[in-house]
């Protein structure tokens, strides 16, 4: 897109400074191999634990980051959990979500008071629900991907964000989570946006005092479903 010489100007300056050749096959191979193997570097031991311990770590860490976490024995339990949470927080009994299969298989009519809207986020939304594809227990970090299943705007526009995650997709490290995404999207492929979310929005820009709800959700509620 840039004017033709600019690209060569920058690349040429790099090669002059490094005293290298852009066609050096050994260098090219090094780069190709590194991308192809995408080997993990050091992964902290913290997340390298069994499944039950991982879930415990995930919950503790998220709660430490001001998120609210609850567990659902099955998809059937989710409507009640959502309804109770909204009631407890004095929020309207309606939410917006995308078309994720997991959300489609939740029997929402079990809580008839709940109204579900679908589509991307709009300014007036108070509550949104999305499904996290995966998580790294290491820092209580969920991986959410863009698309009509879970529009990205739902993660940021509403005051309250509810994320549903399957217990078996809670992994130890970010590296594990990326590999899970590679299985879905393919090698070297990504959806438009991958949001790693570890809590509700916050800022400390005024006198280093932490305030929740800077621009994104003030509340993050995570429902782990077995």
């Amino acid at each position, binding site marked *: 897109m840039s004017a033709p010489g600019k690209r060569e100007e*920058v690349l040429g300056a790099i090669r002059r400074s490094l005293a290298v050749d852009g066609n050096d096959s050994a260098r090219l191979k090094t780069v190709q191999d590194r991308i192809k193997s*995408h080997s993990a*570097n050091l992964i902290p031991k913290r997340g390298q634990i069994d499944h039950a311990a991982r879930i415990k770590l995930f919950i503790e860490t998220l709660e430490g980051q001001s998120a609210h976490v609850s567990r659902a024995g099955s998809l059937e339990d989710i409507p009640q959990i959502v309804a109770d949470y909204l009631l407890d927080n004095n929020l309207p009994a309606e939410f917006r979500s995308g078309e994720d299969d997991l959300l489609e298989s939740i029997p929402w009519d079990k809580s008839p008071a709940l109204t579900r809207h679908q589509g991307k986020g709009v300014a007036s939304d108070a509550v949104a629900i999305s499904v996290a594809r995966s998580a790294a227990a290491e820092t209580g970090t969920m991986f959410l991907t863009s698309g009509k299943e879970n529009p990205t*705007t739902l993660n940021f526009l509403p005051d309250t964000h509810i994320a549903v995650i399957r217990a078996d997709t809670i992994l130890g490290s*970010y590296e594990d989570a990326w590999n899970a995404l590679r299985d879905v999207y393919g090698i070297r492929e990504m959806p438009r946006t991958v949001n790693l979310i570890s809590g509700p929005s916050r800022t*400390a820009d*005024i006198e280093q005092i932490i305030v929740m709800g800077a621009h994104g959700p003030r509340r993050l509620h995570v429902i782990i479903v077995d």
Partner: protein
Amino acid sequence: MRPHSRSFKNNASAALKDASLQLALGGIKNGFVANRAKARANLPEFEDLRDEARAVKEHALAHLDLYLEEYEKKVTASGGHVHWAPTATDAREAILDICRKAGARTVTKGKTMVGEEIAINDHLEGAGITPVETDLGEYLIQLRNEPPSHIIAPAIHLTKDQVEADFRKIHTTLPYDRVLEEPAQLVAEARTVLREQFLAADIGITGANLLIAETGSSVIVTNEGNGDLTQCLPRIHIVITSIEKVVPTLEDACTILRVLARSATGQEWTTYTTFSTGPKREGDPDGPDEYHVILLDNGRTEMLGSEFHDMLRCIRCGACMNHCPVYNAVGGHAYGWVYPGPMGAVLTPSLIGIDEAGHLPNASTFCGRCEAVCPMRIPLPKLMRHWREREYDKGNTPLFYKIGLKLWAFMARHPRLYQGLTGLAMPALARAGRRRGRFKSLPFAGGWTRHRDLPAPQGKTFQQLWRERGQIS
């Protein structure tokens, strides 16, 4: 912004006398510094991760041309556009061109230090486009028409009373008698005001903490979520970034991200870490129609392979300034341009020249804390020393300093004379200062005693004490 690093000394003197600035800076020790120490203690692998992060970046820099080509290939394949910008002017032209073609009136902005570096706001305004900063700190300083004073906490120099006064002055459509005492009330007001801007913007501009060659993704880290609203709502997303941000793989990115937040705010991981790849895909209900990346050089290729090469590993965490006694005393504005503190003292002369920024590498006690905490293990004091040498070689050093340095060098080469003179001076000073234990003023030491007392020596030189101790052990 136009640099005013030449007046560092005057800036620093004024900063020391600025009571509200001193109050604001006082929070760094119990905030960023204490939190980093906690985060480091909580992760046994932290020091090893620093080594690995450094290795990742060194590998990426050694193959920078090839990783940038790979990165560009993937951005293009995902439907995005890469604009190469050898200079700040090239970057601005590319951005303004995109804005003009889109007929943009307002632009929301996530935090971008490269955006500050190329003074993009001034140029957008010049073209009749309104830039709106959305990071709370950046918004606060935009209201005051000030540059950031810290690379991750741009408004760290402000107190909440100053913010309240600004909000009352600028947000005139809100009732004047509203309560704005607590940070939470100020944040809520900024949220409401900026929400309108997010929804109205034609273009969103963000920076990038990292670029990934494997996937053609740009990565931002935020806690507010402003960067995300900036890029998922408008029709066009522009990423302003620089060439040294590229790393090979997602795994490599994670290694660097593991040390970034811990070193910066002391968080284990930021609230939001966002990987963006191209424009929205077919069937996506939201996201931008266009995705542009501006890849800025602006002097970086000259640093590559030079004595300042190590500085290209910098990931802009701000740990060096948080731990710097000079930064903590004078704040970021004294440095006179975009990048303050130790990293700024090395980077600024590289980007705007040693003639303009010669004071900055001298604004250091060489205590070494910056290097000790730098997650990328950049030898900042050594790099500052290189600038001091260059400055001396260029003849920019004032005559008074030169004479002093010559005198010192002569003494250092004649140890007997040195020991003889200091052997006389120390007992004399000790006698003179015996009563008070310190000096309020002293000839040739006015620069020191104007701001604080000089403790009186105890009477013996270091060499003498060393010899005595040698006999004991």
